[in-house]
């Protein structure tokens, strides 16, 4: 790949495909090249504008007035193209329509609302860690922990029934692929879209949801008129779409980070209160959600470049999270760093509404592991899982020594 600025223009252009398997396997060199090319780069293949530096990505994320979401936060422009499902009332909405659903969900998932879950999740995490360790010192950190724990606690917290929960990960995987181009990853998920969507939509119905849980809380908000009864199932759908894969890959990220940085694991062992910082540092370092798009609502000037109204802008959250202009030694996973301000959860009015849930899950599992596991290291070749939006692992074989 080359990023070049033709003579006489301020806009560098690149022919890179950020959604190719080569890049998805290791996007870091592309991130570095796009950051160095300039504050904004034209991606010729998709005819979109790319932001890869922290300052510009952060500024675009918070500027909902000029960078809208309602035209889709993927490559597809909803002004001209039909979305593959009814748009999200949160992720794919702008003020004023975004206001009421956001307010409801933010309260349902707020830090104060999560206090009642903390003790139970800590016990669940300890039980899972005991189960895994009882089977032996070598296991797959993705399958045994990262993909297991969120699926144990989160669907219960939402209040969906047991049958069919295996559909959650494939549905989320497809939803995040669908933000990218119509490539082989999207094609691979297409045959099951109708079936998975029907299952997910069925879980959002009031009569299916448990009487206590995030789902019931969302429906209760519709009883008060804070959102409409038509909106309630779509808000529940947002939980089921965005709340599973992301935490699975976030927990995978932090486990991989520790397995490859033994000194940092020792640091966590000595100071277990660092679990929260560790997870956010891993979200910065790995950026489980790599990218989102926005659409310009007006002609927006970035540096010397004007992005015309109506055009798509690809924000590389992952590149911003390792921008040396913002972070010192950005490629290092370092618990002594303050990762605050990373854009791995986004920023502004669309910032991840489930971030406190994700932190609580990760804190529970890391705390339980740190209590029992003296060392954790890789025990074989790791395998990436490719997704157009997510940075994910298929397999992280590890071997641990316990106290």
């Amino acid at each position, binding site marked *: 790949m080359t990023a070049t600025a033709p003579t006489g223009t301020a806009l560098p252009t690149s022919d890179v495909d950020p959604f190719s398997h080569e890049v998805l396997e290791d996007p870091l060199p592309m991130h570095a090249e796009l950051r160095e090319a300039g504050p904004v780069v034209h991606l010729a293949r998709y005819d979109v504008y790319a932001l890869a530096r922290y300052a*510009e990505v952060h500024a675009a994320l918070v500027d909902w007035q000029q960078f809208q979401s309602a035209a889709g936060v993927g490559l597809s422009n909803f002004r001209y193209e039909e979305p593959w499902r009814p748009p999200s009332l949160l992720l794919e909405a702008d*003020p004023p329509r975004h206001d009421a659903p956001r307010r409801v969900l933010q309260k349902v998932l*707020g830090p104060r609302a999560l206090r009642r879950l903390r003790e139970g999740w800590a016990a669940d995490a300890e039980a899972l860690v005991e189960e895994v360790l009882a089977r032996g010192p070598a296991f797959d950190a993705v399958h045994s922990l990262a993909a297991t724990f969120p699926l144990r606690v989160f669907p219960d917290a939402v209040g969906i029934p047991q049958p069919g929960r295996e559909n959650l990960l494939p549905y989320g995987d497809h939803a995040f692929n669908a933000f990218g181009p119509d490539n082989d990853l999207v094609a691979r998920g297409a045959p099951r879209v109708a079936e998975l969507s029907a299952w997910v939509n069925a879980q959002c119905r009031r009569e299916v949801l448990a009487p206590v849980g995030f789902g019931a809380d969302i429906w209760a908000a519709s009883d008060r008129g804070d959102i409409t009864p038509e909106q309630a199932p779509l808000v529940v759908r947002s939980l089921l779409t965005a709340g599973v894969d992301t935490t699975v890959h976030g927990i995978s990220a932090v486990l991989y980070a520790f397995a490859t940085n033994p000194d940092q694991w020792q640091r966590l062992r000595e100071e277990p209160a660092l679990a929260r910082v560790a997870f956010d540092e891993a979200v910065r370092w790995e950026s489980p959600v790599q990218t989102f798009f926005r659409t310009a609502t007006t002609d927006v000037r970035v540096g010397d470049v004007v992005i015309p109204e109506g055009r798509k802008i690809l924000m590389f959250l992952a590149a911003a999270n390792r921008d040396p202009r913002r972070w010192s030694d950005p490629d290092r996973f370092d618990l002594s760093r303050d990762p605050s301000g990373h854009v791995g959860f986004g920023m502004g009015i669309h910032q991840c509404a489930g971030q406190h849930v994700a932190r609580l899950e990760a804190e529970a599992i890391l705390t339980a592991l740190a209590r029992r596991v003296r060392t954790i290291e890789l025990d074989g070749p790791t395998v990436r899982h490719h997704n157009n939006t997510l940075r994910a692992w298929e397999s992280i074989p590890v071997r641990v020594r316990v106290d």
Partner: protein
Amino acid sequence: MVATTPLVPAEATEAATLRVTAKQRQADDVLTLELASPSGGRLRDWTPGSHVDLVLPNGLTRQYSLCGDRWDPHTYRVGVLLEPGSRGGSRYVHEHLQVGDLVGVGGPRNNFPLVPSEEYLFVAGGIGITPILPMLRQAELLGAEWRLLYGGRRRGSMAFLDELAPYGERVVVRPEDEYGLLDLAGFLGAPREGARVYACGPSPLLAALERACADWPPYTLRTERFVAEEGGTPVRTAPFEVELARTGTTLTVTPDVSVLEALNRIGVEVLSSCRRGVCGTCETTVLAGRPDHRDALLDDDERDANDCMYVCVSRSRDERLVLDL
């Protein structure tokens, strides 16, 4: 020539202090203030119905509804009525506060959010027009049916009539000296599903609305009551101490730094994200002392519990706070 708007990098931290950039008379005894960041940065986002706490240079804190344009991220506008019995809040704003002065700002918080509806019936009494004003544009954008009944003592005392004029017949202006008391029943019509009544004004008006809406479906009426101007406790502008219960450390927080910054300076890590009192990441348990809440997250009951604070923006009302750190 193409008009373009530059993408301005956001500030790393948000000063809780804004500068008065305009002070304009709107009606007899009503003026508006415009506020902006001294550095020109974006202000915290808000939704119609929100209010901010203004910490005036005389140390008093007063709450004012935002009545500007949320699509302008750099300016807040508030309307201020000179209250006859004012002991230093609105009187200070009217008589002493000048363009260029700095004021502390908490929030915005919204206890009066506009919920989705097919039809809105807005009722404003006097300065109660301020939270309603941005709701009108919102209702327009949402394509909802709406009407406004706006009462006041005299036409000359009613603010924003010029801004309401373009809405035509949907706005019914009823000064009391010309029309007498507001005809609420006539304005509301028969009870029906699918409508929301939003009202802000003096207590007798809201009480009358509660009676008028008694036969309407539940949750139809949403009100914001003026809090009568009280003396209030001046907020602490002096330094305060923060004791960290787990480590036994005590530090002093001076007015120029946030609690979060003060903690970071002595190497105490508290995870944060937005640093604007919006996201909730830096929630910290308070064991003793009363926080001076400046966030946009806690509602009134949660504030009064004094059991947690967002250290990126909130401060202390007492000389000493004890945190679970």
